[in-house]
């Protein structure tokens, strides 16, 4: 069997189940070393070398739409960037939580406001928390308002999505900054 990256004979075979689908990556000795296969562990292993074409639609989830936090940052520091990250990085989260906790479902205290409208004390929204721009609607528990967008912003957003899809994170960061500059105020609810 040939290596997925170069043409050499593959000797490292990595199988991982992502979103209930089995993905297999075949690598030769040198490519596996170059990709750091032997060092890395954790839930996003195959993520590191799946080419964009092999990725599922969920590759959009790699960056949190609300704060710009990336999956690789999460893997590195083991912490989330913002509350919305729990939605953005929900793939594989259950497995992670199962190892960490007694269960994966909260059974303790709930704010009195849950279900109804949460109190809105804060008049100013932080400028960096950009509303989500996804093909899927934002989840009900963590609503992120989607504002009406001027056309140039929509163009930037499309570019941002593409940059994320193609893993050009530096470009994505620049585009995100540009969007923030053009549209500094998050709409207050």
């Amino acid at each position, binding site marked *: 069997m040939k290596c997925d990256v170069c043409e050499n004979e593959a000797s490292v075979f990595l199988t991982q189940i992502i979103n209930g689908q089995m993905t297999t990556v075949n690598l030769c000795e040198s490519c596996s070393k170059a990709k750091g296969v032997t060092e890395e562990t954790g839930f996003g292993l195959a993520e590191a070398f799946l080419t964009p074409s092999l990725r599922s639609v969920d590759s959009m989830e790699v960056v949190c739409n609300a*704060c710009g*936090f990336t999956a690789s940052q999460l893997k590195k*520091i*083991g*912490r*989330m*960037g*913002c*509350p919305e990250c*729990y939605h953005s990085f929900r793939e594989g*989260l259950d497995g*992670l*939580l199962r190892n*960490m*906790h*007694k*269960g*994966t*479902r*909260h*059974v*303790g*205290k*709930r*704010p*009195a*406001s*849950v279900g109804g409208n*949460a*109190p*809105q*004390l*804060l008049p*100013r*929204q*932080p*400028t*960096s*928390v950009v509303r989500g721009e996804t093909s899927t609607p934002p989840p009900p*528990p*963590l609503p992120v308002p989607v504002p009406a967008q001027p056309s140039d912003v929509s163009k930037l957003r499309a570019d941002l999505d593409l940059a994320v899809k193609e893993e050009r994170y530096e470009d994505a960061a620049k585009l995100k900054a540009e969007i923030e500059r053009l549209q500094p105020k*998050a709409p207050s609810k």
Partner: protein
Amino acid sequence: MMRFATLIKNPADWMKGAGPHSEIVMTSRVRLARNLRGFPFPGFSQERQRVDLLEQVRPVVEQLPEMRDGYSEDYTDLSKIRKQVLVERHLVSREHAARSSGCAVVVDRKQSISIMINEEDHFRIQGIRPGLNLHSAYELVDRVDTELESGLPFAFDPKLGYLTACPTNLGTGMRASVMLHLPALVLTEQINPVIKAVGKIGLAVRGLYGEGTEALGNLFQISNQHTLGEAEPEIIAQIEKVIEGVVRSEQNARAKLKEDHRTMLQDQVGRAYAILRYAHVLSSKEALNLLSMLRLGADLDLVGNCDRSLIDMMLLEIQPAHLQLNAARELSPDERDSMRAEITRARLQSINGPGSFPTSQSTPGGPPSAPNDE
């Protein structure tokens, strides 16, 4: 609001008061991690955002009924030594003290409740009680949390619970921890199996100042690691049950020491007293270990008129930042060691030595020995 000097001058409620099993359980603490919806966590936000958030939420925290006449300070106005004093008093975490701009702490008058703003999470609400009393510590923070949520939109997900920067705190966001003094289990070399057994149930055992610190002075912290999948009262009941078991083991070990190794015990306590009473140079580690022996002696009525709270107060006074605060300047490690000895010499003047053990039949001036020694 209260000034720093006033806060520190008064001993905290948990230092004066006694609670269940106070001879073994020093304190019970519960902390809740909470975050605001729509804001990045402090570790992934710009300084400007942290300052903004602080400016908006600090008045809300200060206006809590519990915080009336309390202490509130922005970290940019707080010296390194003062921050460290707060760490030594368990009012703020080491991690929080290392931060500056955009961070603040609000403490109630009795030093039973402290709220850290922009720690790893936007809010860390802590309650502290003397003895084994996690229930009461939880009631403190639960009430404060409920009051805060009526004015602040906390990040909460119906399935995942309270959303926290680190997934290890997800769900209840609650960490309940108990500080234990276990000298007899250490002396009788039974401490390792106890620690192992506690670890197996999914509880964490740590040293005096939390994660990665040494168990100096035979002080151990036991806390829950799981925060998701169980309700707060369940978690607390489980820890209390485990702690009661550990307390019984320590009590048995103490009884055994008194019964079978009386001479060794008296020797250890006597040496601890003598060094604390007459030394001129004491390292932090040595002083903590000696005070631990003296505390054990006091608990077993081997030290005459020694009040436990006097020893607990000394445990704080001899810590580096408290020494420097007292001296009103920065001290070199050597200066601290001599200042520390000065304090223990002075405090022990009012305590009769273990030589005056009531049932001792020793001749005056002779070495102390117990009647049923042989």
